């Protein structure tokens, strides 16, 4: 058959062909300057932006936490008024749970996915850029509430009727409600992108059973988010309408039901908890084996447990509502599900322990973070398991025990893997290693600070200290525990500062890393550090789950992966589209170039948010017209769409 562009067989070439590299660089590199930066769709730049922005929000949320801890360090303090304290704990929760915890994992996934999958970019690069911009603007949107008279003040869970207009007439709740709708758009767009990317843009040969666990984790989280986020976006929209349009969805007097809020919020909220821990568990599942010098024990059950955790996670939301007066039998179903969910979690824990036990651990800083994560996961998991029992939950609900549990889960299972992940992949992102000695100080400061801050909260809770109180009287036995907690919080903050200092120092003076400083096994370590704009000079062909360890794992896979020869796809911005299950290439995808439309669309939607906030319907109307126009520009068919590919598998050499 004649090779035409519409039905072409890509030529194979060696990976070290300088002409191909130059051509690919020209095609994929983001132009320098502000214009290039604002229009870029490069997943690596977007990934790093996600990471940096999420860390900035972590610092903001941390400062809010420190203010709360100063207030609670001693009994009967009045550094903050009750109203200020309410805003602090609400914004702390919103910031950490929404603006830090998932976006930071999206940062890793955005940066790493195409590299792990052997592809050139995410499936929808412009959607990727849009997802970042709208996330950034949603965070700014919510924080501008402080400039408009006060932030949200009813907790991150935002229960009705506290948030009903007659009890909460300020605009803080409106900022939160509309900001969360914007944030939901970001999460949904990002999730769609991850799902399509994993099923469509992998390296040839990368079948489902060869996916790194990080991919399983983020894929599962994305599927979960797609199902969960609509519930909360809808709930926030209904709440905003109750407050500003006059509907009565949550008003019992008008035929509504305040409990509906709790159902909608926790239908989203509990799967969200898994969405912000499963990719982090994936970081550990992929990072830990590198430092144990052996593959992860039980790859198949760990992959399955990742999916099963999210699945069961959709059936446990009522355990946040055990104190709301539901029938015992109704609660028992959710109680049972909350017990059952321990099983897949335990599978992963035993796999990590066995990997350490059977491996030859190398005690580098990332290993310390990953191994400590296992311990913190167990502590957080066990305290969660306790609250699955309805009678015990009734005793513990709304006490500091729950605060301790959720911090062990959210910090222990998110922050520790994330910082460990930064130590692990920083060399890939920057070409330099983080300082090892500072890293050890960093680890121990964070680990001791964390446990000093949050373990005593279990005891405060068991002694009856309620959460969300701005102060407490002396003499209840809470004073010393709270003082220790405050000391721990400041030590933890010092650890975060040390981390920032290490990053800043190592960016300038860090040891040069080379492509694979840890002798890791996955594809991202096959390219230079930092990777070139096009990721791979030729698209690799994968024959096992550990392409870079195949000489040591001869029993694994089907032949040898081919990294030094393949299709350069250098005629335009292109990558392979593959079949969903087996990773067989069936199409060459034409990828979009840099574009302003994601940024403009995000700005327009944010303006729509402000329009709704001000109830300026004219502004909303004009902005909506702009949104439609922007969509038309975005979706206008490209001159050369995806091309049918005749892929000659047998041309590929297997050693």
């Amino acid at each position, binding site marked *: 058959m004649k090779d035409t562009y519409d039905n072409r067989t890509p030529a194979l070439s060696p990976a070290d062909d300088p002409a191909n590299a130059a051509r690919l660089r020209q095609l994929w590199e983001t132009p320098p300057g502000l214009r290039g930066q604002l229009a870029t769709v490069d997943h690596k730049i977007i990934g790093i932006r996600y990471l940096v922005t999420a860390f900035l929000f972590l610092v903001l949320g941390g400062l809010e936490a420190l203010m709360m801890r100063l207030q609670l360090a001693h009994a009967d303090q009045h550094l903050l008024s009750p109203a200020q304290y309410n805003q602090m704990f609400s914004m702390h929760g919103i910031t950490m749970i929404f603006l830090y915890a998932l976006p930071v994992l999206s940062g890793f996934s955005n940066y790493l996915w195409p590299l792990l999958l052997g592809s050139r970019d995410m499936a929808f690069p412009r959607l990727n850029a849009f997802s970042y911009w709208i996330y950034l603007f949603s965070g700014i949107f919510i924080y501008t509430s402080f400039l408009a008279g006060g932030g949200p003040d009813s907790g991150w869970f935002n229960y009705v009727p506290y948030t009903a207009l007659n009890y909460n007439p300020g605009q803080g709740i409106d900022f939160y409600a509309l900001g969360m709708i914007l944030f939901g758009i970001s999460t949904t767009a990002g999730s769609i992108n991850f799902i399509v990317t994993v099923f469509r843009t992998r390296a040839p*040969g*990368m*079948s*489902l*059973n*060869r996916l790194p666990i990080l991919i399983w984790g983020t894929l599962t989280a994305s599927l979960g988010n797609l199902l969960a986020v609509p519930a909360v976006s809808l709930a926030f929209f209904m709440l905003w309408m109750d407050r500003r349009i006059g509907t009565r969805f949550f008003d019992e007097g008008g035929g509504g039901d305040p409990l509906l809020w709790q159902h909608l919020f926790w239908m989203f909220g509990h799967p969200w908890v898994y969405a912000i821990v499963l990719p982090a568990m994936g970081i550990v599942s992929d990072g830990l084996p590198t430092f144990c010098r052996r*593959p992860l*024990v*039980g*790859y*198949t*059950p760990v*992959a*399955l447990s990742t999916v*099963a955790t999210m*699945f069961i996670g*959709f*059936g446990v939301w*009522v355990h946040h509502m055990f104190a709301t*007066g*539901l*029938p*015992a*039998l*109704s609660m*028992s*179903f*959710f109680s*049972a*599900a909350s017990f*059952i969910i321990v*099983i897949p979690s335990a599978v992963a824990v035993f796999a990590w322990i066995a990997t350490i036990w059977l491996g030859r651990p190398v005690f580098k800083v990332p290993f310390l973070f990953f191994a400590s994560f296992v311990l913190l996961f167990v502590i957080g998991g066990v305290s969660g398991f306790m609250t699955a029992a309805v009678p015990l939950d009734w005793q513990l609900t709304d006490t500091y025990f729950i605060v301790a549990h959720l911090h062990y889960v959210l910090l222990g299972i998110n922050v520790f893997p994330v910082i460990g992940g930064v130590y692990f992949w920083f060399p890939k992102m920057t070409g330099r290693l983080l300082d090892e000695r500072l890293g050890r100080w960093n680890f121990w400061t964070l680990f001791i600070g964390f446990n000093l801050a949050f373990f005593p909260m279990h005891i405060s809770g068991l002694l009856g200290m309620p959460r969300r109180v701005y102060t407490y009287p002396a003499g209840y036995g809470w004073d010393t525990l709270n003082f220790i907690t405050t000391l721990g919080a400041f030590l933890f903050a010092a650890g975060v500062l040390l981390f920032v200092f290490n990053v800043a120092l190592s960016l300038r003076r860090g040891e040069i890393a080379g492509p694979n400083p840890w002798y890791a096994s996955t594809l991202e370590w096959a390219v230079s550090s930092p990777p070139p704009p096009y990721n791979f000079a030729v698209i690799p062909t994968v*024959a*096992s*789950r550990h392409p870079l360890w195949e000489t040591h794992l001869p*029993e*694994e*896979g*089907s*032949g040898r992966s081919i990294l030094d020869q393949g299709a350069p796809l250098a005629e335009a911005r292109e990558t392979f589209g593959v079949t969903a*299950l*087996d*990773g067989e290439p069936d199409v060459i995808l034409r990828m979009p170039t840099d574009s302003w439309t994601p940024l403009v669309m995000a700005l327009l939607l944010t303006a729509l948010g402000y329009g709704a906030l001000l109830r300026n319907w004219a502004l909303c109307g004009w902005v909506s017209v702009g949104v439609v126009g922007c969509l038309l520009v975005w979706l206008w068919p490209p001159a050369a769409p995806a091309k049918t590919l005749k892929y000659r598998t047998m041309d590929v050499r*297997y050693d």
Partner: protein
Amino acid sequence: MAHDARKDPFHPSPHREEVGLTSLWIGILGAPLIWMALEMVSSALTASLCKTDTTSIAPQHTDTVWQYLLPINLVAFLLALIAAGVAINNWRKVRHERAGSAHDLLEIGEGRTRFLAMFGLLTSGGFLIALIFSALMLFLVPLCR
């Protein structure tokens, strides 16, 4: 009869023709979806049937709850059992897709079809146990209190 992997040694899934996708998905998702549906239906039904009196054990309500929930639980268990049967059948067909035992598959995961078939075995087994525990609650928990 098992397909000979050597016919197509480099493909990640040499036995992909042995088991249809529908069959694989039934094996993987059948029992979990049934469990999830049972949980939703049971909790909604209980809340509805017990609604008139949530403060005391009401025998007439208890009987009604039994009448609905027991057959629903039985049907759910039977359906999950069928899905588990499909999963077992899938596994039998593709267990030899690659060299090595089921233990090797758990460790390494090679052979995409048998990897998914193993997923089906594990989810079916796990969620069948979950369904048994769900049914046990009808005997252990006060129904309308």
